[in-house]
């Protein structure tokens, strides 16, 4: 699903539809106008980034930020992160791990692989909404994305 946007595209990698819904709700609540793309597992995320499968004919620009869950079907979030950060063409894409896990192990692994930010999803909805909003605002609006990231409508 795609939502039209004037700002940098946000790629959400999340297998849980409820989390997707809540995340989108949170983003909507603050009227973030960025284009949002949701993929449901690690494989789809990599397909999207490499123009494969259903994303063969997608636009040639990279997302302004990728919100990446860690616990994903097929290809694990850390694997996705590893492939993105070791790929010459993709490594500049900012990646934010957005996960339920507050395990130190995951945090350390992510930072070692070069993650740009690590956010634990708060249980409290208000806090969750705040976190998502701030992420969206920062990465989608404030942060200047790397070259090759086309911002539609600007």
């Amino acid at each position, binding site marked *: 699903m795609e939502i039209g946007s004037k700002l940098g595209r946000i790629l959400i990698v999340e297998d849980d539809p*409820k989390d997707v819904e809540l995340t989108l709700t949170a983003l909507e609540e603050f009227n973030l106008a960025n284009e949002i793309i949701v993929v449901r597992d690690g494989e789809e995320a990599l397909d999207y980034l490499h123009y494969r499968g259903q994303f063969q004919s997608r636009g040639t620009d990279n997302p302004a930020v990728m919100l990446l869950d*860690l616990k994903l079907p097929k290809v694990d979030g850390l694997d996705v992160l590893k492939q993105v950060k070791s790929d010459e063409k993709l490594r500049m894409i900012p990646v934010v791990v957005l996960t339920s896990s507050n*395990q130190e192990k995951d945090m350390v692994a992510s930072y070692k692989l070069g993650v740009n930010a690590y956010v634990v*999803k708060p*249980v*409290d909805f208000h806090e969750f909404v705040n976190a998502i909003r701030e992420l969206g605002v920062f990465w989608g609006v404030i942060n200047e994305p790397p070259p090759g990231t086309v911002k539609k409508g600007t």
Partner: protein
Amino acid sequence: MSRIRSAVRGYGLAVLSVACALGLELLLKGRIPGLFWIAIALSVWYAGVGPGILALVLSISALKYFSEPGHNFHIIRDDIPYYVAFILFALLIAWLSNVRRRVERNLLQSRDELQREVTIRTQQARLLDLTRDPIFVRDMNEVITYWNRGAQELYGFTAEQTIGKHSHELLRTVFPVPLDDIIAEVQRSGRWEGDLKNAKADGTEVVVSSRWCLQRDEQGRPMSILESNNDITERKHREEDIRGLNQALARRTATQKAYLDELFEQAPEGVVLLDVRDCILRVNREFTRMFGYTPEEAVGYPINDLIAPDELRGEAHEYTHGILHGKTIRAETIRRRKDGGRVPVSLLAVPVSVPGEQIAEYAIYRDLTRYKAVEGELTLQKAHLEEIRGLNEELAKRSRELEATNRELEAFAYSISHDLRAPLRHISGYTELLHKQFSSEGNEKSNRYITTILESAKRMGNLIDDLLAFSRIGRAETQETLVNLEDLVREALTEVRHEFGERQIAWKISGLPSVYGDRSMLRMVLVNLLSNAIKFTRTRPQVEIEIGRADRSKNEAVVFVKDNGVGFDMKYVKRLFGVFQRLHQADAFEGTGIGLATVQRIIHRHGGSVWAEGAVDKGATFYFSIPTPQGYLWKSAAN
């Protein structure tokens, strides 16, 4: 012929001398009386009795003829005394001549004998000169009378330089005994032999073997002493050298013997020397120590009688028998002490033969008492080691099992962290969305339900977080550093500040130590304790919280956190530190019941302990102790 000529000459002399006397008488006319006397004397003295008689007869005839006129030859009475006087005179002269001749003959004979003697002596002296041995003769006044070539060669004096000189002064002789004794010996026995020291002409000293022989004259009186010398200077020097060498050798031998004796005595093993009958010749100190027999008690007794136990007598005799037949014995056996006690020994016995000595055996005993004790100890320790090895294996197995369990727990915690939180978040999220829709309708009841659901979800989230933190303490690696607790308390206060907000609290913080420990864990301890204190003083108008030090010994640092809050009943004190244990109703003071369990777990991992004191409405004091480095023992696993 010669006799006739001699007789003619004699008688001629007589006729001539009487004729001369008659002529002179006639010429001088009797003025010189006695001329005929002279003629007669000459004839008798030089020509003998016959010519003397002729001269007498002629003289008388001539006197008769020429003295009386008429020249007759009558003999008258008055003339007779005159003739007798002539005859007597002639007889006297004849006798005198005879005496003279005899003396002359004797003198000649003596001279010849003397000449012969001189010849012999000279020949003898030449012979003495031929020998190389120094020989010289001195009279009884020590004056040298003879000095041969050998003496000249030895002493450097010529015969001219020595003969007539005092022998001992010239040669500066040093006698081995007083000279008078030597002279006495020589006069008694005729000879003396001994070594003398003399000086040569150039002053150097010479040692001679000297032989003296006494010469006596015909009357047996000591006349001279012949001394022959033999240069033994070299021999003396060699003798002295040999004596010196012998002395050195003797000294060295003595030293070596002393060393050997010392070695024998000080040897750390019991050493014994035996003769061919197995009787003890000598024992050393260690032998005495080992077996209790002093050398006096041991020497002369058969060794086996002294130290072989009765039950091993056969074996002991076998050994000594074997040694006598040239065998070397090495054995570990038992020997008996004087007091009857047994000594485990190692025995080394070797046959020995020293020339001229009757030693048969040299035996060395080493006391194995301590060795045996150590051996026993070793066996015991080996058993212990086996046991420990077994325990270690068991421990390693347990450890592996524990590691597996830990890994499972970790996976479990990971799973909880991911999978339990997500539904909670959804409950919370969707309830919130629902609440938004209902809140506009103002349904009081619905609002309360929704709020309750949200609170429950949040509480469950907290519970999960606390549980995960708690389980992490047991597994996490600890990093031990010196931690200043005073600084750490201030950090913890910053962390809990939002919990008391505007409330006025009188903080008393003083005298906190620095301890060795994991900084982040200790911070968690302080945060939990401060958080508790803040929470349970909420109902108090005047709040006092004190953090201080209360050491009980130098081996540990004790820190307490004291509040004047609601306190607790001491009968529940044991439940304070259990997981999910709460002493207050859930709506009175919020909390998960994990905080104090976490505190205890952390302190236990640091090797310390926690305890609490309190009373209902009288406040509570929580203590924890951390061992100081010398008494510090890091516990690898929490309780």
